[in-house]
């Protein structure tokens, strides 16, 4: 799996407008039609969720727990695999770099954009979003060129850093940072659009009141706007963490482009799962690693939801 793509922009602004219009006119669609349409749309999603989300998870749990070696044997095989810990170390290092940089930069950029004049802000928002329009593997291909000192348009930077060849750039110690840059480049623009939508949802009266009370742009950004989009930041962290632990496309494509130099086929846990299943017919152990990743994502999501009071109704 690639790092997570960003969901559709929450049309909070549009919804707020429509809401106020509806409230003004007191128009309500007939309850039956509304309910049927609701069930229809939800059903489409539920079918796909069951087929492509729940069923594979159930099958993975079944595979992970079925073993001739006794209950839990697949998990102990996975934990004892010499590639298991390094894979998790790699991915945690990547996540630490990526989440911190993405959170700080996305929030900073979106707050700056929101305080700019509307037209300028829209142009920058669009520019930030463009890289995100590239699908996972395609964006990695772009980076293959960017990172190759013999082909990159930014070769002078790579040479300045002392990298003469592609193999130098993708030295093992550089990989977490490289994947973090790739993930930021493809994902940040989408999140900026999402956060921008969230910022637009802040009542204008509130910002006006702050201004009248003498709040400067900086204070407004950090004391009014930021607390109001906190839930979206937490939401970004939940998705980014789950997607980050499942890192797959980037190291796989980079590894095959490097012709086997520097990046192993089991750099990340998700790759290790694939490697064990496809190269050694060890589907059960691979499933156990998938379940570990799932549990990892769920636990961190639960902590973030709880600590970030994500679902709390004020």
């Amino acid at each position, binding site marked *: 799996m690639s790092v997570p793509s960003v969901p559709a922009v929450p049309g909070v602004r549009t919804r707020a407008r429509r809401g106020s219009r509806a409230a003004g006119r007191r128009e309500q669609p007939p309850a039956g039609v509304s309910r049927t349409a609701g069930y229809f749309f939800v059903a489409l999603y539920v079918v796909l969720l069951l087929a492509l989300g729940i069923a594979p998870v159930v099958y993975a749990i079944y595979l992970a727990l079925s073993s001739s070696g006794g209950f839990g044997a697949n998990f102990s095989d996975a934990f004892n695999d010499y590639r298991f810990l390094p894979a998790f170390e790699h991915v945690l290092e990547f996540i630490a770099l990526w989440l911190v940089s993405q959170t700080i930069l996305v929030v900073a950029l979106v707050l700056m954009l929101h305080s700019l004049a509307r037209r300028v802000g829209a142009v920058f928002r669009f520019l930030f979003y463009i890289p995100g329009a590239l699908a996972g593997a395609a964006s990695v291909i772009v980076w293959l060129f960017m990172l190759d000192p013999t082909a990159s348009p930014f070769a002078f930077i790579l040479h300045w850093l002392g990298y003469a060849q592609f193999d130098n750039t993708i030295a093992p110690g550089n990989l977490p940072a490289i994947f973090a840059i790739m993930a930021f480049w493809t994902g940040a623009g989408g999140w900026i659009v999402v956060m921008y939508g969230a910022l637009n949802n802040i009542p204008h009266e509130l910002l006006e009141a702050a201004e009248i009370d003498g709040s400067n742009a900086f204070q407004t950004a950090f004391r009014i706007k930021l607390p109001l989009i906190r839930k979206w930041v937490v939401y970004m962290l939940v998705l980014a963490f789950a997607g980050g632990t499942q890192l797959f496309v980037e190291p796989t494509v980079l590894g095959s482009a490097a012709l086997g130099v520097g990046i192993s086929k089991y750099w990340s846990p998700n790759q290790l799962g694939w490697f064990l299943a496809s*190269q050694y017919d060890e589907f059960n152990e691979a499933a156990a690693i998938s379940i570990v990743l799932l549990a990892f994502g769920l636990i961190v999501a639960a902590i973030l939801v709880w600590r970030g009071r994500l679902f709390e109704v004020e």
Partner: protein
Amino acid sequence: MSSSIRMTLRRTRQRGLRSALITCAALAIAGATVATTGVAAASAKASSKPLVVWYDAARAAFVKEYKATHPGANVKWVLYDGDGNGSGTLQSKFALYNRVGWTPGVAPDVVFDEENYEAGWLGEPPFNDLLNLKPYIAKSVWSKDEGLGDCLINGKLLCLRNDNAANVLWVNTTLWNQFFPGQQPPTTWAQYAADGQALVKNHPGYYIGEFGQPWDAETYLWGNECPINEAVGNRVLLDNPNSSNCTTIAGLIDSALGAFTTNGPFTTSWVNDKTAQHMVMDIGAIWQGTAIYPSGSSSNGPGTNVIEAYPPPLATNGAHVTGSIGGGLWMVSSHTKQPKAAAALMEYMDTSPKIQESSSIEEGLPAYAPDQGGWLSSLNGVFANPSATEAAIKQAAAEIWPGWSPVPWSVESIFGNTVTPSLISGGTFASALTTLAGNIKSAAQSAGWQVKS
């Protein structure tokens, strides 16, 4: 807006936000990849099904020739990546077929594999997917295949070797005569390293070889009888990096490290830097002569007409041995319903003079000895000093050290992930040897092998 309406809106918004968050989080987390099932079962009679043959792009000329001489043959040809560079395609497809069933007419009956060690991977547990060919191919035929150490595994014949990929010493005669006038190219590793040191001193920017590519274990360690990948019993590996055969060669390479390019022959750096034109010599497989030295090709080389093959250097223990890089395999699935037809097809591909004696169809020296003379004479005019080149190729072809075994892990991959990064960060081959052997040991134990040192 009244406070009650605002409250209602806020609740609606909260509910919307909440359901959106739950939905998106569930989607992202539940995306853990797990392959699911398919349906096997073939009801039709197997004999009516076509023979399915998987081949790689370099074997397209073989297929064309087969079609011309076998009109009406019921064969389904499937082009795939040949498992090149250890891509793992065959392992992943075989693993899936083992789960969903080997449907005749869909799953492959005959496979060409570019990786010379993979019969020991796909023909052994947990795969067990290769047919023992002994009942289907006459011994008088298969015994004439060279390099069968990669196919004869635990008493079974699991493949035929397509080409003999023994390593020779390729020398650029023009550069050699310019830099080493009156001197003969090296016949020992010590001379080879000494020439490298002289080159670093007198002609920096010119090379005696490349070092750092994944297959270099097969050049320098295999070529000096280094026992770190030697099967010495059923699923028993000898992995001893402390053997003098390993440490001596590593020390010699280190002594001339500046005379090796780290550019790989299939990289953009190789082409951009015109590396092939700076190789005074290089130890490489027979097929590399025509693959990386032609001028005006994508390799940007000096032209094969200035390149001559010499016998590989003697091992530091005095043995006449060499390593081997690549050299493809023909294999038959143990699940085939048409073993005789499948074996007949692979035998034709592997031995037919129409295919194997033509250097325009077969790029490497045919493994099937009776075809070698024809192939070598079809090379006339390609290399400098054709008769000496032919003699060197023939000599090397018979000297592949059998102690480097086909195993169910990729030494190339391990080498590329350990030795190369170590060299890039300024380390030496000798210092990386222990890590390399340690990782081979881990891979072997993980595959259920016992490891001795």
